[in-house]
C-alpha cells in the first residue's frame, strides 16, 4: 500500500535532513498546503462513501506519524545546532558592565546613622532642634547663668543680644523635656558651632549627638550600662568603657567617658598616645536645675544625658587625619565612602 511507502520515504527524508531548515522543507513537502498529505486528502472525495472513513483514518495516522518523526528529528537537530552555536560563541566577559551609579553618604552622616541606629534599636527616639538658639535654651536653662565662667569654654557665635548659634546639642534636652513629658529616651544628632580657629582637629561648624534618658530612680550605673552597650555595638564586644570624673554645669555628677582604643584595643598605640583609651564624650546625671528649668520635678524624675562628637568619631572610625577634609567635599574623598563599612 501507498501508505507504508510514503511513510518510509518521509522518514528517510526527515532523518537525512542536515539542519532544521532542510527539515522544515521536508515537513512542508509532506504536511504543507500543497504537500503529499493535502493531495491525498483531495483524493478522498473521489472515493465511494463507504471507503472514505477507512482511507481518511489512514491519512490521519500517516499525518500524525510524519509529524511525530518531524518533531523528534527537530529536537535532535536543534540540540546539536545550539551546541554548535554555543561552542562557537564569542563574548569578552572581561569587559565591565555600565559604570555603576555610585553615590555615598558623607562620612559624618554615616557615623550619625550608625550611632543613631544603635540607640534607636534600644528604644531611643530621634529628634532635632533648631540651630539658631536663644540664650535661655543654650545656656541658662542648662544651668549656665549669664556670668558663669562656663561660657568661656564655649566661645559662641552671636546673631544679636538674644540669639546665637547653638554651641552644643544640649538645648534639645530642654526642648524635648518641654514637648514630651517623662519618661523619655531621645537622641538628637546635629550641627553645632563654636568660635574655634580652623585647624586639623577644630572646625567652627561640627556635629554632635546628644542623648537623654529620663525615668524614675535613674543612676550612674544605668548610664554606664547604656554607654558600654553603645561602645560594644560600635566597636565589637571586646570594647571597654572608662568613666573619668569631670565637670559640666548641666550634669551632676559628671564624667567623661573613654573607649578602649579603636586600633590597639587597649594595648597602647599612636592613636591613643599609648594610653589604650580614646576620649569619646561627656555624660552625667541630669542636674536638678535642668529638670526644674523644663518644669519637671527633680524629686520624682531623674535621668542621664550624654554627648559625643560625630566629626571626631568619624575621624577615628575611618582613620582620617584632618577634620578639614570633611568640609572640602572633594569627589575623590567622598567616593571612598561608597563602600565604607556601615550597618
Amino acid at each position, binding site marked *: 500500500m501507498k501508505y507504508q511507502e510514503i511513510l518510509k520515504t518521509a522518514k528517510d527524508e526527515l532523518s537525512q535532513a542536515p539542519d532544521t531548515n532542510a527539515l522544515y522543507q521536508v515537513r512542508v513537502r509532506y504536511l504543507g498546503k500543497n504537500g503529499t498529505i493535502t493531495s491525498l486528502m483531495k483524493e478522498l472525495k473521489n472515493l465511494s462513501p463507504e471507503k472514505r472513513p477507512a482511507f481518511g483514518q489512514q491519512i490521519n495516522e500517516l499525518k500524525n506519524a510524519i509529524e511525530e518523526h518531524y518533531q523528534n528529528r527537530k529536537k535532535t537537530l536543534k540540540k546539536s545546532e545550539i551546541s554548535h552555536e554555543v561552542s562557537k560563541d564569542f563574548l569578552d566577559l572581561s*569587559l565591565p558592565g*555600565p*559604570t555603576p*551609579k*555610585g*553615590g*555615598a*553618604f*558623607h562620612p559624618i*552622616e554615616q557615623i550619625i546613622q550608625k550611632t543613631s541606629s544603635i540607640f534607636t534599636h534600644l528604644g531611643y*527616639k*530621634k*529628634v532635632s532642634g*533648631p540651630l*539658631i538658639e536663644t540664650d535661655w535654651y543654650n545656656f541658662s536653662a542648662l544651668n549656665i547663668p549669664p*556670668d558663669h*565662667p*562656663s561660657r*568661656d*569654654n564655649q566661645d559662641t*557665635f*552671636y*546673631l544679636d543680644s538674644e540669639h546665637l548659634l547653638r554651641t552644643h546639642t544640649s538645648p534639645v534636652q530642654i526642648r524635648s523635656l518641654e514637648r*514630651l513629658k517623662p519618661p*523619655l529616651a*531621645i537622641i538628637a544628632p546635629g*550641627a553645632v558651632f563654636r*568660635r*574655634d580657629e580652623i585647624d586639623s582637629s577644630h572646625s*567652627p*561648624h561640627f556635629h554632635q549627638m546628644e542623648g537623654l534618658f529620663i*525615668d524614675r*530612680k535613674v*543612676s*550612674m*550605673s*544605668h548610664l*554606664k*550600662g*547604656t554607654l558600654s552597650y553603645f561602645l560594644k555595638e560600635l566597636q565589637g564586644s571586646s570594647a571597654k*568603657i*572608662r568613666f*573619668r*570624673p*569631670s*565637670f559640666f554645669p548641666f550634669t*551632676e*555628677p559628671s*564624667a*567623661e567617658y573613654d573607649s578602649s582604643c579603636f586600633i590597639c584595643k587597649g594595648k597602647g598605640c599612636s592613636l591613643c598616645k599609648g594610653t589604650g583609651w580614646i576620649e569619646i564624650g561627656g555624660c552625667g*546625671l541630669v*542636674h*536638678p536645675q535642668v529638670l526644674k528649668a523644663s518644669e519637671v520635678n527633680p524629686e520624682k524624675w*531623674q535621668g542621664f544625658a550624654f554627648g559625643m562628637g560625630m566629626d571626631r568619631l568619624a575621624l577615628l572610625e575611618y582613620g582620617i587625619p584632618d577634620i578639614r577634609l*570633611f568640609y*572640602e*567635599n*572633594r*569627589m575623590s574623598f567622598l*567616593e571612598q565612602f561608597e563602600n565604607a563599612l556601615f550597618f
Partner: protein
Amino acid sequence: MLYSFNWLNEFISLSDLQPQDLAQLLNERGLEVEALSSEKLDHVVIGQITKIYPHPNADKLQICHVKKDKDQAPLSIVCGAKNPKTGDKVVLCLEGAVLPGNFKIQERKIRGELSQGILASKKELGISSEDDGGIFILPTSAPIGSRLDEYLKTNDTILDVFIPPNRVDLMSHIGLARELSSLLDKPFRFPFEPYHHKSNTSNLGIPKGQMKYSKSPKLPFVPYKNSFNVKVYETDICPYYSGQMMKDVQIGPSPYWLKKRLELLGVNSVNNIVDITTWILLEWGQPLHAFDLDTLEGGIHVKKAKSKDQMLALNEDQLTFRGDELVIRDDKKNLALAGVIGGKSSAISDKTKNIFIESAVFAPYDVRRTARRLGLNTASSFQFSRGVFPHTSMLALQRACSLIQQVAGGSLQGSPYEEGSFSFAQKSITINQEQLNERLGYEVPLNEFTDWMKKMNSKVTKRFSNIKVTPPYYRKDVNIKEDLIEEWARLKGYDFVPKELPVFAPQKSLNNKELNFLERIKHTVKEQGYYQAINYSFVDHTLHSEFLGEKPVADIPLGPPIFLTNPITQDLNSLRQSLLPGLFQNLLFNMRHGEDFGRLFEQGISFFKTGNRFEEKQYLSFMVWGQKKDIWNSNPRPTLFDLKSSIDNLLTLIQAPDWTWTDFEGSFPFLHTKRRLLLKIQGQTVGFIGAINPMLSDQNKIRGDISMGELNLSLLLNIPKTEFKFQKPSLLPSVKRDISLLIPNEQNVEEILNFMKSHAPAEFRQISLVDYYEGVQKGFRSVSFRFIIQGSDKTLSEKQISSLQQPMVKALLKKYPVQIR
C-alpha cells in the same frame, strides 16, 4: 592652667611622687592634665678647677683641668675666658648637653688640643642676658658633681591642668596644693609664715592641725599713718579692698629664680615689682596691681568711671569709658580699670621709687563684662571673672611685700589699708545612704564617705541616717546633695559603678514626620548616584549675595542677611540663605584638583529672618558636572537632563503629586538664561534647576558641562502625597505602536507629550518618548513616541487600535505645527 611641680612641692611634700604619678592622680580626680613637660639641663654639672695652663697653640686660650668627681681623673677643657682660677667651682657642660639657643656641646679638638666640653658663662646658661666676659664662678659651697639645675633648683616639671570653671579655688599653686593635701592626706605647709595684722592666723580653710609653718622671720608691719585716703564707693562691685605703701624700692630686673620660674609658667619677666605681682597671682590666685605712688594726686577712689572719660592703658590702648566700668582713680585722673588693666600714667617705671600695692576683690560679672567689651583679656581679668577669695587677699598682699623687700629692697610705709568683709560660713547639705545608693547604683560605704568629706575639709555631723556636710568656704561649687554625690564619685573614682541597661518605660510615639522625610530624601538621592556634601552654615556675605543675586530662590525672598556679630573672619560672616554658593565653592575646589566628574548633593538648612523671627528651612541642593564615559554609553547627555531625571525620580519615589517643569523669568545670575527650569507642584514653586551661566564659568576659569539645582524641602514636606492605589495587572496581551513626528524647534516636546497623555483613550496605557534626533530637517526635530495599548476586557483588533488612535492624532495635528513622518 600651668603649675610648677617644684612650687607645689613647697606647700606639700611631693618628694615620694613622680610628676607622672601626680598627673595620674589629678586625672583620676577629675582634674585633667593636658600636658606634662620637663625642664631639665642634662650633662651640666658643677666642677672644680684643679689646674690651669696656657694652650700650646693659641695665645688667647688656656686649658683647664676640671674635676667632677673626687676619685676620677680631671677632664681637660679649652677655655677662652680670663676669670677662672685654680680651685674655682665652675659649670661644666659635657658632651650631649644642649644649652639655651640649641647650643649643642660636643667633645672636639681646638687648635690640636682636646676639649671634653665647655665651661659655661651666665649668658650661655640663660641666667643672664648680658655677657660679663667671663665664665660663671659658683660659690665655694657648691657641691662638686651635682647637676647645676638641681643646685639652682631650675629642674622642674610643668603640668598643664584643665581647671573646671567651678573650681576657682584650684586656680593657684596654694589652691592646688591644698587640694592635693586633701587627696594625698598629707599636711599643708607654708615655707614662710603668713602674717595677718588682725587675727594673726592664716586661714586657708584647712583645719589647724593639718597646716605647718616654717620658722621664717615675720614681716614687720610697722604701725605708721597712711599719708592718703582710700575710699571705696562701690562696695557691691568691690566687696574687699586692701593695699600697702612701700618706700624706696629699687626697680630693676628680677633675679634668676624669679625670672626662671615665671618663664617656665609661660610669663615673660618685666621688672622685679611687676614680676612679684605675677608671682602672687600664680601662688595665691590673687591679682595685685602696683601703682607708682609719686604719680598719684590725692587719695585713691574706687568708683564708676565717668562717661566718655578716657585712660591710656598699659598696653597703649586709649580706652573710652561708657560709665558702667569700675575704675581706680585719684583725685584727678583714672589710674586703672579695676581688675582688668592698669593705666600708663601710674605704671611702674625705671624711675619709680615709692609704690602702692593693691590687693582687692572685684565682682566677676562686672570684670568679665568690661574685659569682654573692651577686648582686654588679661591674666587679672581672667582670674577675677572666675572669682577671687577676699579671705586670702591680705595674706597675699603681705607675702607680696615680703617678696618685694627681698628682690627690690624698700620699706613698708604704714600699716596696710583694709576695707570690706567676708564670711567663712557655708550652707550645710544633708544627704542619706539611700540617696547615695540610688544615684550611683551601688552601696556606698558611709564611713568612707564621711572620711572623705572630712579630708576635703568639710565639717560632717551624723544624725540618724542623715549626714550633714558643711563644705569649707572655698568650695563654692558644693551646694546641693548632687554636688556631694559628684564629690564622692570623683574621689572614689567611677570604676566601682556597675554597668546596667535601664528597663524602658513605654514612650509616647513621636511625630517624626520631618526627620523621616529628610532621611528618605537623602537615601533616595544617594541611591541615584549622588555624593553627600556638608558645608558650613556660615558664608562670606559678599560672595554669597553676588552669587545669588537679589531674586527669590524658589519662591522664598532672601530677606535681610543674617550676620554673626562676632565672626572668626570676614569670609565666614553671615548665615547661608541657599546651599548653592557652598556647593559652588566645592565645585571650584574639585575642579582645581582635576576632578572632572561630580555628583554632589547637600541636604541642610538655610536661614531667614522676617521681622525679629529667625526661620530655618530645609533645602536639598545639587551640583552636577561631567559624565562618566564607558564603553556602553557613547553618546553622553547634557548633565542638566541627569539632574532633571534624578529629581523626577525623587519626586516619584516620595509620591509627589503631578509636577511640572516650566520656563521662568527673573534673574538667577548663576544660571544660563536659556537652560533653566522651575519646578512647580500644585501651582507652588518648590525648586529650580539649570545649567551654569557661562559668564560665571568664565569668571572662575572653569570649563565643562555644569548643572545645579535646589529644592525647598520645607515646602515639599507639606505638599500632600498622591494616594497609593493598587491596580490588578491585565491578563490581556498588549500591543506597541510607534508614531514619529517632526516637531519645530520652538515647540517644546513636553507639551506634545502631555497633550497626547491627556487626549489618549484609556486603552493607551503608557505613552513615552523613544527616539529623538536633530538634523532630519532644518528647524525640526524628529521625535518618536511609543504607545502601549491594551484592551480592558478583550483583546483589541488592529482596526480598533487605529480607530482609537485616529482622533488623538488628528487633534494633535490640528493644534500643533507638527507633521507625521
